[in-house]
């Protein structure tokens, strides 16, 4: 039994039909892979009145190379991303991050867009109704308390997507359909509004990833208690694209699982940009700044399976990735 409350289920075969449900019905949930939604329904965390299954909408699937970049349809699964030749050719880092999500069985169902637009998680929220019965409902459940930080006026749950830091580092954009036309918005904007609970009825049709410039160096790292299944205790994506035709370089560092939204280590990358001419001499300083910025911007909360102390130590993983970047810079592979 999935839910004690009954709900309607429909499976339209077009984006227009699906959008129509979203705009006209109440309490509508889109069902993509379902790997997050179904457990939430079982736990009584989400209680849809109407479940719209997107699985029959063929136009939401597929990966195509466009002039602006690689386009990945909203219903493409993480499992498909991992083995797709175009992903491996143009944005291999995305495939690497997808490979670290959960397990093969989950990746066979979970979609990229679902992974990006996942709910923030918290040990007090992601529990069964039985477990939550003895504590007051938190902000995410319409209550007035955060059990992590009782004096907080907002929810402090963390965001754990493994693919989002990579997509942010690659300046990915989101394509949406509003009933009349398709429009493309920055992923960062979409994420911020989603994670801050701004309710906007949107239909995401896919992700557009600009082709990284030639010679781009990029790394993704995920630290988790177990090598499979688990959400990250920390993940990070670092991207460096060398200057081209006098423009650039482009440096991006995004870290996940450390705060309610992905953190951009902008101060660190700004420092790098303003010291480009002698960057290779500043490796230790850059690493120290990155760790410090991450520690400053992190808002860690209690998690199951890992202590706060162990989680705090994870921040030094940023140093490891930056070390690799500097090795590449110094070996003049990135010119």
């Amino acid at each position, binding site marked *: 039994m999935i839910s004690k409350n009954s709900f309607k289920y429909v499976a339209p075969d077009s984006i227009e039909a699906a959008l129509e449900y979203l705009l006209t019905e109440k309490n509508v949930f889109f069902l993509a892979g379902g790997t997050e939604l179904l457990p939430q329904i079982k736990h009584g965390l989400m209680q849809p009145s109407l479940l719209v299954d997107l699985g029959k909408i063929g136009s939401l699937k597929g990966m195509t190379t466009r002039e602006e970049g690689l386009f990945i349809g909203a219903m493409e699964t993480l499992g498909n991303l991992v083995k797709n030749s175009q992903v491996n050719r143009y944005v291999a880092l995305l495939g690497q991050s997808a490979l670290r999500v959960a397990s093969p069985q989950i990746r066979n169902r979970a979609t990229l867009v679902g992974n990006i637009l996942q709910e923030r998680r918290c040990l007090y929220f992601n529990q*069964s109704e039985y477990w939550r019965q*003895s*504590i007051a409902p938190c902000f995410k459940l319409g209550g007035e308390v955060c059990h992590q930080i009782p004096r907080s006026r907002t929810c402090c749950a963390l965001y754990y997507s493994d693919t989002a830091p990579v997509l942010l580092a690659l300046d990915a954009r989101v394509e949406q359909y509003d009933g009349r036309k398709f429009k493309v918005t920055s992923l960062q904007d979409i994420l911020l509004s989603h994670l801050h609970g701004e309710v906007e009825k949107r239909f995401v049709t896919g992700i557009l990833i600009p082709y990284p410039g030639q010679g781009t160096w990029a790394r993704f790292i995920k630290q988790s208690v177990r090598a499979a299944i688990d959400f990250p205790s920390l993940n990070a994506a670092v991207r460096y694209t060398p200057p081209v035709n006098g423009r650039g370089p482009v440096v991006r560092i995004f870290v996940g699982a450390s705060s309610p939204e992905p953190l951009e280590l902008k101060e660190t990358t700004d420092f790098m940009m303003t010291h480009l001419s002698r960057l290779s001499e500043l490796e230790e300083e850059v690493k120290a700044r990155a760790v410090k910025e991450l520690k400053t911007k992190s808002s860690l909360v209690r998690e199951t399976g890992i202590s706060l102390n162990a989680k705090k130590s994870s921040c030094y993983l940023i140093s490891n990735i930056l070390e690799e970047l500097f090795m590449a810079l110094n070996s003049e592979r990135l010119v």
Partner: protein
Amino acid sequence: MADTFKIVGKSFPRHESIAKVTGQAQYTDDLEIPGMVYGRILRSPYAHATVRQIDKSEAGKVPGVLGILLPQDVPNRPFNCSGNPPSPMLIKDERVLTDHPLYVGDRIAAVAALTKEACAEALERMIVKYQPLPVVLEIEEALREGTPLIHPELFSSNIFKKLESSQGDVERGFAESDYIFEDEFNTPAVQHVAMEPVSCICHYMEDDQLTVWSTSQTPFQERRVLAELLDLPENKVRVVKPIMGGGFGGRQQIHNQHVGAFLSRLVRRPVKIINTREEEMYASVVRHGSVCWLKVGVRKDGRLAAFHAKVYLNAGAYCTHTPIVLGAQSRKFQYRIPHYRYEGYGVYTNGPIGGAMRGYGNPQLTFAREVMMDRIAKKLGIDPLQFRVMNHLGAGETIPCHTFPLRSCAITECVEMGERIRNEIERREASLHKKAKVSEAWGVAFACHTSGPSNNEGMSSSLILVNDDGTVNLLVGSADIGQGCETTLSQIAAQELGIDLKDITVTSGDTFSTPYDTGTFASSQIYVAGNAVCLAAQDLKEKLCVALAACYHTELEMVRHEHDHFMIETGQDKKISLSFKEGVAKVMFGAKGRILAGFSSFKAEESPLPFSVCWAKVAVDKRTRTFSVLHIIQVVDVGTAVNPEVVKGQVEGGISMGLGYALMEQIEMDQRAQKPSSSDLLHYKVPTALDMPEIHVAMARMSYEPTGPFGAKSVGELPVVAVAPAIVNALSIATGEKINFLPLSKVFMPKGRSQIKKESQ
């Protein structure tokens, strides 16, 4: 020694394997009894509360609901749920249903309905008003002055059991020591996470006969407890154990069977109750969390002089097994020690119930002891392996507080075999890490356990029925819970009788049709049940000899069993040789025909110790505090390995459990919610296949236990014990840090070996 046997010592496939992998095996949840309905238990969401009111009226209106039980509908008589033989040590402090829940998951009410959905809806509609009460979750908290008592009606303290055992005079021992080491160690509560949840079907029939199909490690103890609770004689209670998906101790107590029985009596239909995974996590049992204080005295020549342990076990809200766990824990010190003192304390809290779990108290104290042994070796400048070997007991010597000497101990062979493996690994494997800041190190730990209950209460019996074609039916009360003992016991029978394994069909764990067995715990199967099977086979052979003597009109002394045949001297220098089947054919029918059966009753008077030596290699990044376990080597002395592949499987599984215990498993208590937060297998971390190191298993070949069947000792629990201290010792060496706790994820970040391989490519 095993090479001399035809059946024992050979890796026959387990007889149930094909059925399991093809989906034909019938587990409890696969069973459908005519008229069967479903049951669910309403459990307290609070760790401590009183129930001020229950209104079941709306629940009763749910279509399909057949009956609801409240605390006043069942006997208020306290009982002890553990599957141990009766003992005054086992405090009766638990009730079938309660209006004063003492832990999250405590049983408040129960419903029977035609469908699972109706059960769930009925529970949803039960209106229960709770008054939350102060909660005590940790040992230190429970011992603090002024802390509320969990069972004020029974005890004036939250310590409900103190057990002491000693030899010599520890104070004198410390006075004679050149060095004294003292420290405190903490281990967490962990859960068995058997694949199959607690399951039962209870059918209370019109003639006051109760049949229970359940995931039970102790069908006969379960029969006894249920008979007492339902005021039935034991001949009216039948407990049947279907194929089981694991137990690990978690099925050595009654969880839902009593509720199912009362529900069935109410609705007069069979009632099936299957635990959810969440119920498994904190409403079944866990391994006791512990606080161990150790003081060890040693002479400068490296000889241990004195050992004093004070261990506090977090029993949770009810006593269950705790006193027996303390006793078992006290009898596992495998080193030569003139002065020894063990003090064990059972402590009540409002945490999950500490019950039986693989190792039964041994992992907690051995962890503390073996970590301490490494520190002592380091201080004395002695190699940690040599330090242990020089202090280790040998055959003829006696473990502290044991009543019998060791008769077999192949610890030296285990060390030699393991070192060969370790050297081979080092020779072929360049360091996986090329980064300077990653340190690698090997750690080692020793362990022992028991073959059968170490208080020598193990009993078993066996019945071998002979069919007229000479095949046999082997009946054993011992329950195969997935460890393969039906196959290994069959091997013992086949070896003793001199017949092929395929000529034996085994039935186990049915209190109506199989003879008594104390239970599948304390690693009893090979030793206790195995000896019973051996004796039953010997009894059968003797009876066949008697029958053949009568048949051939010769004296009994002229008939003997040798080299798998019955040799009959009929006089006139005539010798006849008959196989078992030929002998049966000769005697079964005809004028002097007789029916043959062998029977035994075996009471264990000793509980020989199996031993293990475990090595772990770790690699740690000291800056990020991530670490990986790269290799685990475990060499075991189990005497004769009746089925080496089964033994290997047990060791590998034990390593997996020990790894989880060391790295990441813990039932976490959330102080804000005042309850466990480890509610499912995402919150509670059990290692996955990708987290496993390379495992190397070996068995000592030269060990033979004279009191065991064909020289065998048990292996069931042993392999869990030494893993955690071996890993911690390795990590301590690699980091230079003292580590006094588990799991390591409290301060370090585990990283699966598969990740290291990817990163190094």
